[in-house]
């Protein structure tokens, strides 16, 4: 019974993305080559404002990357400072902690990425099931709200939950006590923190991600569902077989974009929550917090830029690999 439904879904899946339907495009291209070229130039004009913008505000300042190879001197500025070769790069790698920090960065980012994507998709699917207009609206606003809460306020709330005022215990410990479980000194125990931080990220971004996926769901053509429904599939089957596959392109984009930033620690959130609490560093110290901590006094733009450049280059390599894999296995979803 579901065979027809899936087939119908697949049909429309493959017919929606333009590149997946090369058959009608090709004859047209050969039919009117001149018009096509002209109009592709015409349509390219649309990108001109953004392109000029990118050049002025992003590519021109990239000249500043040279400071990574310089011995930075305040009065001589970026371009006047003397060259120092790869000296600035040595600082991070000669640190005995480099290995652990790299591992932390990747581990936390993978956790964050996987958890927020999963939460976003699940939440979007569930929200899509809800039919009461009023409840749906309220729910959507409610789950989006955490995105606005600043990391400082998050850190205050966490302290109330996990430490209490003056370290008196906190709500969670009170609950543990009530259940007859041993109390935990959360702020000196590094073990649980990757999970606590992941929970915070899901809380922060689950709603945000779900909005992206919901928008994708709303553009799924109704016929797809009609076919499935006639077929007698349950709501869960529709969600699993019809909606979920349609979210793949969006998820793929978010995934590839996330992979590129896997070497960037989430400084804003982690620093606001962990701060300079050394006891939690074994599991929470990432590249960005480490660099901030060791260089805040020196104000050395050169070394900071060197670490940043390293992160960018590694990110670039990873993204290239991700895109190549994507092109190979699902060409129509490739973004680059």
């Amino acid at each position: 019974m579901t065979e027809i439904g899936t087939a119908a879904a697949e049909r429309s899946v493959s017919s929606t993305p333009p590149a997946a339907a090369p058959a009608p495009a090709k004859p047209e291209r050969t039919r009117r080559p001149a018009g096509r070229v002209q109009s592709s130039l015409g349509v390219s004009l649309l990108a001109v404002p953004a392109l000029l913008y990118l050049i002025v505000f992003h590519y021109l300042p990239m000249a500043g990357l040279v400071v990574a190879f310089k011995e930075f001197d305040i009065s001589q500025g970026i371009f006047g400072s003397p060259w120092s070769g790869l000296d600035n790069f040595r600082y991070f790698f000669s640190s005995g902690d480099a290995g652990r920090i790299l591992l932390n960065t990747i581990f936390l980012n993978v956790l964050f990425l996987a958890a927020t994507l999963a939460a976003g998709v699940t939440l979007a699917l569930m929200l899509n099931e809800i039919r009461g207009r009023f409840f749906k609206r309220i729910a959507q606003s409610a789950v989006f709200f955490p995105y606005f809460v600043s990391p400082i306020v998050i850190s205050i709330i966490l302290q109330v939950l996990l430490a209490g005022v003056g370290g008196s215990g906190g709500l969670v410990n009170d609950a543990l006590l009530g259940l007859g479980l041993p109390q935990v000194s959360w702020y000196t125990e590094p073990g649980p923190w990757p999970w606590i931080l992941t929970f915070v990220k899901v809380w922060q971004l689950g709603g945000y991600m779900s909005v992206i996926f919901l928008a994708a769901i709303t553009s799924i053509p109704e016929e797809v569902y009609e076919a499935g429904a006639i077929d007698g599939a349950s709501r869960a089957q529709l969600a699993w077989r019809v909606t979920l596959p349609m979210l793949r392109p969006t998820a793929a984009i978010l995934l590839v974009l996330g992979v590129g930033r896997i070497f960037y620690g989430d400084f804003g959130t982690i620093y606001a929550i962990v701060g300079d609490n050394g006891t939690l560093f074994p599991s929470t110290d990432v590249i960005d917090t480490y660099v901030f901590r060791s260089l805040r006094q020196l104000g050395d733009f050169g070394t900071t830029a060197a670490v940043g450049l390293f992160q960018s280059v590694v990110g670039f390599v990873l993204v290239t690999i991700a895109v190549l894999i994507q092109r190979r296995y699902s060409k129509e979803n490739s973004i680059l």
Partner: protein
Amino acid sequence: MSTDIRRRRAPLEPFTVVSIIGVSLFMLISIAPLWLILSGSFTAESKLSETGYSLFPHPFSLDAYRTILAGPTVVDAYIASGFITIVGTALALACTSGLAWVIARRLPMISRPLAVLTYLPMLFTGGLVPLYLLVTQYLHLANSWFAVILPLLVAPFLVFIQVGAFRQLPESVLESARIDGASELRIFWRIGLPLSKPILAVVGLFYAVNFWNEWFTALLFISDIDKFPLPLLLQNLIANVSASTMLPTSGQAVPVYQLRLALTVVTIGPILLAYPFAQRYFVKGITLGATKG
């Protein structure tokens, strides 16, 4: 008729029940802190400093809001943030959708290089110093709201979200327009954009939130307090004497716990009020009518 199909099923399907429970749970986790923040912002500091939170605003106190309103030019700050958000979002949407459309069309020799050009700034940045020099010494935008808008104008992340959505548009509709002799620009304006309202609403919302919350570029480029956007002004309100313990502890005594919570309320309020308007576009199948009409 089409929407009926989604509704027609029996109301007690297990997945629907699971969904209602799941969403309710997530909702609860999301807004429980909102209640703590809201209630705390109206609770006297003496109570907050005992427990750190308060479930009911008792003893009731308006101290924090009074401090905020007594601060300089809160109204000006709302105007500044309003300008930055509205103008910024409009410009950002214009640039983003134009760029996203061209990338989404997969034009030979154009789309892929453009995509790469758009993506690279997500990885490589020249750092603060060049940006600072560019804005203050070459563009002379210090103390202008455009100095807050421009550095954030095109977010590669959102461009790609939009590219993805544009690529999901039914090719058949675009093709038939082409056969009718419509120019590519006309197709973009007449078909592409209207069909993509949900994603435009989402991307617009995300841009608006970014602009509304932005304080760092404002901190860098705006020194005239009359032009401070809201987040910067509010941040300044907590006299951050704690930057170093070496400093004298002089400073007006503000209710620290309460103030932080009240600041959150003041900043979030307007965006939460604006949210339902954006939401309108992606809650129910807007695309549907458009495709068929």
